[in-house]
């Protein structure tokens, strides 16, 4: 598929070509190629060990690929940057396990995430600017956490923690959001609300969602990429890929 994506190199927001990663001889990614357009929302599915989380690690600079290219906005080579630099470029990540700062209030979690100068000097001497406070208000409303703002994040319910983390992503105001299994462990009602929240976010952000939950992926109604053993098996609408023989065999058929 690399021939088809090459011409898009300049216009793609995120571009991965032939990315391989191995850990102690185990090939987590083998020649993975993927292109994401600006404003696009993409769902990534695949069985355990397909390389979904490793792919996220490569994009966010946590893991360096052994080979292959990773470009952001067609000009930033993400394989040469570290986590903080990539985050500053505008790539936000939500982890599989909700990772919020449990000893901080909901408000402070968002304050730490909000787009603002990140230097030691700036945070030591500067308080929360008016712009940041506005952002925080807006996000509290979007994520339905306004009533919880003064509570410690550690005291929130599982679903609320997931939303807070999505809210923290929004506060960063990234160009690209990577969301790892946002509905794992959620109730049906929470899942539906999360799908709605993500669709709302996708209106003005590019989003990559990694998910196991097929009902949730269907609810998102976006293009789907199926990963298997570290490379792309199929791509298309959920109905298209569900009809693909190989996909049925390795994943859906089980």
């Amino acid at each position, binding site marked *: 598929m690399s021939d088809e994506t090459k011409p898009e190199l300049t216009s793609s927001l995120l571009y991965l070509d032939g990315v391989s990663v191995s850990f102690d001889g185990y090939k987590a990614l083998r020649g993975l190629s993927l292109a994401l357009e600006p404003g696009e929302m993409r769902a990534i599915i695949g069985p355990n060990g397909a390389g979904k989380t490793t792919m996220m690690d490569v994009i*966010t600079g*946590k893991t360096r690929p052994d080979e292959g290219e990773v470009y952001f906005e067609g000009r930033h080579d993400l394989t040469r940057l*570290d*986590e*903080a630099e990539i*985050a*500053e470029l505008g790539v*936000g*990540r939500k*982890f599989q396990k909700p*990772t*919020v*700062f*449990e*000893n*901080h*209030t909901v408000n*402070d979690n968002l*304050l*730490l*995430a909000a787009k603002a100068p*990140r*230097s*030691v000097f700036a*945070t*030591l*001497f*500067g*308080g*929360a600017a008016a712009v940041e406070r506005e952002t925080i208000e807006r996000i509290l409303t979007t994520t339905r956490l306004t009533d919880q703002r*003064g*509570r*410690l994040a*550690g*005291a929130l319910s599982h679903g609320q923690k997931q939303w807070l983390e999505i809210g*923290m992503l929004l506060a*960063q105001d990234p160009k690209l959001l990577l969301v790892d299994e946002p509905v794992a462990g959620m109730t049906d009602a929470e899942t539906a609300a999360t799908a709605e929240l993500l669709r709302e976010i996708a209106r003005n952000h590019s989003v990559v969602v990694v998910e196991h939950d097929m009902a949730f992926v269907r609810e998102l109604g976006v293009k789907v990429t199926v990963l298997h053993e570290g490379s792309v098996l199929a791509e298309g609408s959920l109905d298209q890929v569900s009809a693909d023989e190989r996909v049925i065999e390795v994943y859906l058929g089980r």
Partner: protein
Amino acid sequence: MMPLPRLDRLGVAFLIITIGAAALAPILALVVPHDSAFAMPPYVVALLGKYMCYAILAVALDLVWGYCGILSLGHSAFFALGGYAMGMYLMRQIGARGVYANPVLPDFMVFLNWKELPVAWWGFHSFAYASLMVMLVPGLLAFAFGWFAFRSRVTGVYLSIITQAMTYALKLAFFRNDFGFGGNNGLTDFKDILGFNVQSDATRAALFSLSALALALSYLISRAIVVSKYGKAVIAIRDAESRVRFLGYRVENYKLFIFVVSAVMAGVAGALYVPQVGIINPSEFDPGNSIEAVIWVAVGGRGTLVGAALGAVAVNFAKTYFTGVFPEYWLYALGGLFVLVTLFLPKGLIGLLNLRRPARPTPPTPTPTPSLAQQEEGAR
């Protein structure tokens, strides 16, 4: 300059006690007649002055361990380096009054047949220069050490081990006569500081007051740091370091700053300590001293600042008592205390204060370090 930090009730009480003690001690020690019940005998002044220095060290350690999760077992190095810088000034003040009556060279150098003052000792006749070195030397060591350690992402127990190795290496270096700092005897026989006799009651009272004020100032600086947005980021690093990286913060710079501030504070504590105890030698670098300081912080209450200072004073008071009454059992008592506090008082002594307060309407916090959380909440 940074605005004054918001203080909670505990912080206000702490400042009143430390500043009050600084004001009161000279009166009790010098003005009140010696046979009065309120008089402070000179040995008590010296003892409490020592406790104040330990408390500053504990606050410094709490800043990095309690708030940033850096368990440094090398803070005795910063404390001792500050102490040596002050000791070098005090040695040069002896001048021709030494046994060998050499106006420039301290006695141990004459004894070793040295003809010239080593470069490292230049400038230490000046109090201003020595004071600068008290902060600069520990600060630079912490900067160099932290630069490499934090950039290489050395964390947890590995970091603790190399901090311990650092202080041990310094201890061995300072033990050597040819290293030029008095070998295993260290620096002692001090005569005066800024022209005042270090042994006199008035100087001792002044040193106590200065130490108490330095403790109050250390608390204020630390408090300002931990309640700022920087401080919130540091607490976040302690709890979920990689999450902070993905938010775009340069974690290594955040750790480096707080580590250097803490080291400078520990250096100042050491500098105030040396004139009060009258000696500095390589045993101050002992890793065991660093571990004792960690126990003070744990006993008092980690991540509370006030608790760290309280723990330092309480444990050292117990140490003074025990080593006087049952000297051979002190280490067992210390070990037992650490185990008991860890098991039954996870929030330390300061946690006892919170028990007596009525429960807050906010829901309980199911977190491993709730003492800190409540502190932070109480500050609002």
